[in-house]
């Protein structure tokens, strides 16, 4: 069970935000293609940063509390999940605020 420590925290994040899709009707998961393309930039840049930071020893992980699978560059798979889930949580939060407040965000259809 210990090896699920990292992904356990990610599960907490998911539980904290996925309900917005239903209760606030954020329609983020409903726009799957847009979500998938939104991942490209943050995942690419932050995985590159992660690879550099791990190689330079800026940070490291408790090997007992990560899944134990790695991407090239000794990046734990847990980290890839992090860089998918945090953007999702951010976008869900943005759309949740819009759902309640209706504030302009810059992607409205031209009149």
């Amino acid at each position: 069970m210990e090896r699920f420590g990292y992904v356990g925290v990610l599960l907490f994040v998911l539980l904290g935000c996925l309900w917005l899709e239903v209760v606030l009707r954020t329609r983020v998961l409903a726009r799957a293609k847009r979500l998938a393309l939104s991942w490209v930039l943050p995942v690419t840049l932050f995985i590159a940063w992660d690879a550099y930071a791990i190689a330079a020893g800026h940070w490291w992980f408790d090997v007992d509390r990560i899944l134990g699978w790695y991407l090239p560059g000794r990046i734990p798979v847990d980290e890839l999940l992090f860089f998918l889930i945090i953007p999702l949580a951010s976008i869900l939060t943005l759309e949740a605020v819009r759902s309640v407040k209706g504030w302009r965000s810059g992607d409205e259809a031209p009149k």
Partner: protein
Amino acid sequence: MTYTQLAIASVVVVVIADLWLLRTRMVTRKVFWTSYAIVVFFQLVSNGMFTGFGIVKYDGDAIIGETSPLQGPPPFIGAGRIAFAPIEDLLFGFSLILLSIAGWIWLGRAGLQRTPTAGPPIWRAGPRGPRGPRGSRGPRGIDSSDRSGGADES
């Protein structure tokens, strides 16, 4: 470069991207700062778990604070840390959140899945039907009548 330097540089780069490359201008919008305020709270909680439980550890040569201890949690606050995490993580998080949101808005502005738009929350009205407004604002004033709640609506 240290984590401190990279974290500062990342904020500069992402803000430049938001203002002048993607031209999403999220940092000028109320909707972004409100969303960020919510996300940063949960960042402190979840990142506090990563660092307080020692799942992720940091090298004192790369951050303002000290190297994460072998046993037990690092300082909760002070000594370059906030909620167990290096304060650099706030900059890292800001960059990740802003880049993610700006990218999402940029794609929408480019015409990719602008719809269905968000809302209304389930406590305001039923699902938006064919007669519903197309804007991002929920159909206010339409009485769902089968619900007495909505007291928190401003």
